[in-house]
């Protein structure tokens, strides 16, 4: 198996059950000084296994590692972006067990046995997900930094509408929500785009949703 955490594995020389175990000798980036709470448990790290884009991973992590840092720094899937690291921008949006979340505000160790989908797992350059194709067609970005989060979020939004989850702008709470532009804008408000590509993003989502806005 092409091993995404090969370097760390060979450095530490640990391999468990065909999946990689990365012993983390360094602190997650930018997180200040270590002041071990108590025991060796902290220094040894905590083991967690989950599936990312259909592949199993088993990691030995400092408990402080967020899911976002685990994906980017340990599994080297750098599609998910770190914008604010505080739940305020949506650049880190990934889909966990079918539900979109901010991967910066959750600990990797809290995701034992979870199924995680990142932008890399939605489609490939050869076989784009319809939402990715629609973003390209409608120029739903400028710098592209927010785009992976926007796309993961948009894909999940369509599922949320399908599941009948209402939103702040739904006129009637008890009838099924509609695929309108206002609905999309409200549901996508957790994804900020500093380049202001919003109107093209809205068009891309409308096309992927098959709706006439």
């Amino acid at each position, binding site marked *: 198996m092409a091993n995404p955490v090969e370097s760390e594995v060979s450095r530490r020389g640990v391999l468990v059950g065909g999946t990689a175990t990365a012993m983390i000798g360094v602190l997650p980036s930018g997180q200040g000084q270590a002041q071990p709470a108590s025991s060796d448990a902290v220094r040894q790290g905590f083991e967690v296994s989950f599936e990312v884009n259909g592949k199993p991973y088993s990691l030995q992590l400092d408990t402080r590692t967020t899911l976002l840092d685990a994906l980017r720094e340990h599994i080297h899937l750098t599609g998910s972006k770190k914008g604010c690291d505080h739940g305020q921008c949506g650049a880190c949006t990934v889909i966990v067990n079918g539900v979109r979340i901010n991967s910066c505000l959750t600990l990797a160790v*809290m995701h034992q046995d979870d199924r995680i989908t990142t932008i890399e797992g939605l489609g490939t350059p050869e076989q784009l997900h319809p939402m990715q194709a629609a973003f390209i067609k409608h120029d739903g970005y400028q710098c592209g930094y927010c785009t992976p989060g926007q796309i993961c979020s948009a894909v999940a939004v369509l599922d949320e509408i399908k599941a009948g989850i209402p*939103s702040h702008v739904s006129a009637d709470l008890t009838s099924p929500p509609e695929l309108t532009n206002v609905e999309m804008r409200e549901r996508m*408000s957790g994804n900020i785009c500093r380049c202001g590509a919003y109107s093209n993003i809205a068009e891309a989502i409308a096309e992927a949703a098959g709706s006439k806005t």
Partner: protein
Amino acid sequence: MRSFTYERASLAQEAAAKAQETPGAKFIAGGTNLLDLMKLEIETPQHLIDVNGLKFDKIEKTEDGGLRIGALVRNTALAADMRVRRDYGVLSRALLAGASGQLRNKATTAGNLLQRTRCPYFYDTNQPCNKRTPGSGCAAIAGYSRQLGVIGVSEACIATNPSDMAVAMRALDAEVETIDAAGRTRKIPIADFHRLPGDRPDLETTLSSGELITAVTLPPPLRGTHIYKKVRDRASYAFALVSVAAVLQRDGTGRLAVGGVAPKPWRIEKAEAELRGGAKPFSARLLADAKPTNENAFKVTLVERTVAAVMHEARQK
């Protein structure tokens, strides 16, 4: 972030006992507030007890015809539950007006109730803040206080409680169910759940050390028009300047709680006797003891106007 040890809890009482006996232990649920604060070292737990494995993820009917919402029910699931949408519309609306889709998918019922203030000085560790560092002073009172509280505040702290959900729960007279380290359970009326700051703004609720929230119960459905109106600086994904949770009747009576103005959802049952007279006498009674700063005095007027808008909307329905 400071380092910490981590464990997954599988039994409620054990989790409560562990939290009580382990120095610096904290529960973690959705993590959307706690991790935010841990990154800034405003919260520095030494041990995290992950409660996500506890079986508190269901919404069930109670014997008296109300609803029992498990502590771990996510904000999205609660807002989308058909019984809540139909019978407790004000709660669905309040949840949907809060945070973002991503955050609501993670945020839990208990975590939402316990989210901490958004006072900018509480978040800025270079500033004095009696809530964060008791006795250090309050930078907000003479500072940028536009978003902060106008009533129920003290000379030590003028922070507001930022939860939208809690405001609706206050209008509905919800109760918070808990279990402690010894396995004792109790129900706390939401009105008594959050404390006013007084000279101890660091103490925010009436929960005891290690006490774990297991559920929130709602009384049987309240007929009437359910409305949640949130006024904020942008149309979505922003905290309230003022919010109103209301269940109003055709004859002009009703219940009404206000958010964004106080350290807890602000409701004075006696003021509701004034509702028939309109927004003005009601708001005057509700905010009779208000002590706004120059910067947030506008909130007193904004409450009256938002209440008027809510009453108008109810009459249209």
